[in-house]
């Protein structure tokens, strides 16, 4: 198992996108691709080849779960953990997202200083299960 390097972040809000980018690049030292919509993420997938995808749940157009459903139809994403980011959720909603195939759910507001460690841990868990 190699280290987590390439992270794709799909989020419609530009400010959150920027905060997350700095957190992941500067604090986490990852290579980051920020996308403003599910479609943009799908389009950039082949070229960027992420190790992990951070996906906002509530987005205009294609929302998080819809984007995830699309991702899961693509063979190249089979081994890529997808992590949802959403506002405070009920345990039942977390269970529902995981049933849809999410590796984990990170609640907003998130702490950008700990976000890199959080997703590293998720990534390790995901691959530990293989």
């Amino acid at each position, binding site marked *: 198992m190699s280290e987590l390097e390439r992270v794709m972040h799909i989020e419609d809000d530009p400010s959150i996108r920027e905060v997350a980018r700095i957190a992941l690049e*500067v604090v986490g030292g990852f290579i980051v691709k920020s996308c403003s919509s599910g479609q943009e993420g799908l389009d950039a997938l082949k070229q960027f080849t992420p190790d992990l995808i951070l996906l906002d749940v509530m987005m205009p157009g294609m929302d998080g779960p819809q984007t995830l459903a699309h991702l899961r139809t693509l063979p190249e994403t089979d081994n890529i953990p997808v992590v949802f980011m959403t*506002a405070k959720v009920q345990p039942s909603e977390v269970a529902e997202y995981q049933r849809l195939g999410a590796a984990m759910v990170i609640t907003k507001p998130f702490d950008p200083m700990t976000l890199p460690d959080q997703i590293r841990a998720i990534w390790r868990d995901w691959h530990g299960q293989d």
Partner: protein
Amino acid sequence: MNRFCDQTAPDAVDENLRLQTLRDYQILDTPPERSFDDLTALGAELLKTSTALVSLVDEHRQWFKSRFGLDAFETAREVSFCAHAIQHEDVFVVPDARLDERFAGNPLVTDDPFIRFYAGMPITAPNGARLGTFCVIDSIPRSLDSAGKDSLRRLARLAEELLALRMEGMAGRFRQQQLERQQAMNECLLGSLVEAVVVCDAEGKLTLFNDTAREWHGADIRDMDPASLAAQYDLFEADGITPLPMQSLPLLRALQGESVRGAEICIAAGGQPPRFVLANGGPLRDSEGQLMGAVVVMHDISERKRIELMKRNFLASISHELRTPLTSISGAINLLLGGASGELPETASKMLVIAQTNATRLSLLVNDLLDIEKLESGHMRLHLSPQLLLPLVRTAIESNLGYASDFSVKLELQANAVDAMVLADGVRVAQIMDNYLSNAAKFSHPGGTAYVSTELLDGHIHVSVHDTGAGIDPADHPLLFQKFSQLDTSLSRKRGGTGLGLAIVKQLVERMGGNVGLRSEPGEGAVFWFSLPLYSE
């Protein structure tokens, strides 16, 4: 007035009562009636006279309800023979009017119809008032033997019977009219209601739909088994989807004797949008307490529901809109404070801490607002599972130690009933404890200790948080668990808090079957407690 005045019959003693009684019969100036006409014809035949009359004497005249052998339908009272006859209890006979000084000058004697013979028997009302007579008249002098008198008495009695029957019939018709009017009034009343009214009989068969009920159900009363009412009239539970089971039907519940209050159901008659209604009702009993049926009155609350939904959507959307910028504000601040852009000057760090604290506070407020709305609208889903309470309490204390130390307050646990199980949502119990513990930290004197204790009381496990603060005036206790009630708003600004915490605690605890409360006297700190029912398998 005329020359016969001195010869008119004197008034009866109870003349006013007599006249009133006569008026009560409502017979004067009414059209001829066959039964009375038959009676006069029989009388003339029986007593072999040319004329027989049913004569009624009012203030100024005698009026003939029936007249056989006479054209006039009334004559003045002064010339009336009957006015004399009603002064007597029994048959009054004038064999030859020409020889009787009371009548010799009477124009009915001296002129047409040239009365010679008169015999009249008073017609008496049950109250004794003599209303008039049954009389026979002839233009030749005659006498009346005792058999004739008997006949006359019988004929008068028959006339009395006829009058009584007529009166009864009138009263019956009057009652009928009253009933019909009352019924029309009731229908009009029910029809004018904006509420729907539905009534069934003791067997559960529908007997009444008012106009509104008919409109809402898109149908009139159909004769059917009460069990199929819900399906036939498209009735659903308050969610608008689940078909209403028979035992939940407000009308049938009312028929079971239940006093139904505020039952919310949905009527989705074909072609109409679902209508949410609040139903009130109860059994109908007669004066002996015997069940006659049941009534339900329904009030349309669709508009209220629509507004509630708008409010909920608004809150959901505004909280999302608030959280999104908060996420980036908090994120940016945390990045700066975490040194993501390098070392910061000390004053810049201090200001960023202030910004961070307030961003946190704002997001707590948004969470609290959403929670209270969900609790009040019944949309908060609790995930109850049987579990030990003490570990939840311990974890809550541990996670609040840091916060309490910011106020120089220690937290200590005094645990009893360590193996008590409760049916609870662990996340929500933590939220409850967070509220109590953060209050205890905020309101205790610096350097003090807040104690948490658990104990078993009456099948409930009580968790109490004792602070060592200034205490709370008992008069203010009832306010504390209400929304947005911080006793001293300047305190809340200084110490944080949204004013929703305790209201949320109360609702959460109650949803888990428990209670909340506090004990406090000014100067002696406060004890906030909640209890949950002990769980047993």
